[in-house]
C-alpha cells in the first residue's frame, strides 16, 4: 500500500475510528505506555499517533512528539491536545520512513501499529534507530506472526484478512522475517489486545548480541 492509499483509507475511517478500531487498539496502547515507565525528563517519539488516543496514558510532564501521515487523523489529534491542554504533547505530519529529526533525539521511540502498514519496514526501523539515543528504548506494537502461535491465532489471522486489507495491513508478517533485517536487540515480547493478536516488542537501541 502506498502513502496515498494509506491517507485515503484513514480519511475514510477517521470520523468513527476512535469508537471502532481505536477501541481494539486501546488496551495495547495502555499496556505499552505503562511498560515504558516514562520519567518527567523523557523525550518520546510516537510514530503512528493517529488521533492521539495514547496521549492520556503518558505522564503530563513527559514530552511526546507524535507523527502520522494522515492529515485527517492529525487534525483530530491537535484538537484533542488543545481541548485537554496537553502542554508537553505535539503532533507533526511526517513520513515514518523519512524522519525529519536529528540523530539521537529521543529517549524512547514507539512504532504504534505502523510496521505492517508502511511500504518499507526496513527504512522505517532504520529511521527509528537513528533518531533514538544509543541504548534508548524502541517499542513496536504490531501484529507479527510467530511460529509458536496457537492454531486459533493462525485461523484468526486468516479470518481478519478482509479487515486488515481494509485498513491496509500486511495480514501475515512473520517476526523472524522482519528481524532478519531489523536486527533488533529484543528484550521482551508481550501479547496484547483481543485474542492476543498483537504484540509489544521491546528492544534496546544497541547492536543485537
Amino acid at each position, binding site marked *: 500500500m502506498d502513502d496515498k492509499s494509506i491517507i485515503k483509507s484513514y480519511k475514510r475511517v477517521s470520523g468513527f475510528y476512535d469508537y471502532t478500531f481505536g477501541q481494539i487498539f486501546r488496551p495495547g496502547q495502555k499496556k505499552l505506555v505503562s511498560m515504558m515507565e516514562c520519567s518527567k525528563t523523557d*523525550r518520546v517519539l510516537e510514530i503512528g499517533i493517529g488521533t492521539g488516543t495514547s496521549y492520556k496514558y503518558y505522564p503530563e510532564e513527559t*514530552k511526546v*512528539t507524535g*507523527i502520522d501521515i494522515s*492529515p485527517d487523523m*492529525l*487534525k483530530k*489529534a*491537535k484538537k484533542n491536545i*488543545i481541548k485537554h491542554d496537553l502542554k508537553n504533547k*505535539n*503532533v*507533526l*505530519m*511526517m*513520513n515514518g520512513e*523519512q524522519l*525529519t*529529526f*536529528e540523530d539521537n*533525539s*529521543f529517549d524512547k521511540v514507539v512504532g504504534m501499529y505502523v510496521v505492517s502498514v508502511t511500504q518499507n519496514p526496513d527504512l522505517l526501523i532504520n529511521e527509528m534507530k537513528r533518531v533514538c539515543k544509543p541504548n534508548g528504548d524502541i517499542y513496536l506494537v504490531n501484529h507479527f506472526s510467530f511460529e509458536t502461535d496457537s492454531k486459533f491465532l493462525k485461523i484468526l489471522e486468516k479470518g481478519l484478512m478482509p479487515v486488515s486489507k481494509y485498513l491496509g495491513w500486511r495480514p501475515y508478517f512473520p517476526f523472524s522475517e522482519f528481524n532478519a533485517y531489523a536486527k533488533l536487540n529484543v528484550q521482551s515480547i508481550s501479547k496484547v489486545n483481543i485474542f492476543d493478536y498483537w504484540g509489544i516488542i521491546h528492544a534496546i537501541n544497541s547492536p543485537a548480541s
Partner: protein
Amino acid sequence: MNEELLDVLVCPKSGGKLEYDKIKNELLCKESGLAYPIKDGVPIMLIESARVIE
C-alpha cells in the same frame, strides 16, 4: 511553535536546521530554500507540501 521541538527538527531535504517564521506560520530552511507550512497547528514536514522561498 515549541522551542525544544524546533531544536531537534531538521529539513527533510537538506537535513539543515529550521527557523520558525511567526508571521507566515512556516518553518524555513535556508539551506534548501524550502518553507514547510503549519496547517491547523500541525507542521507538515513533507517536501512535496513545502513552498519554494523566492
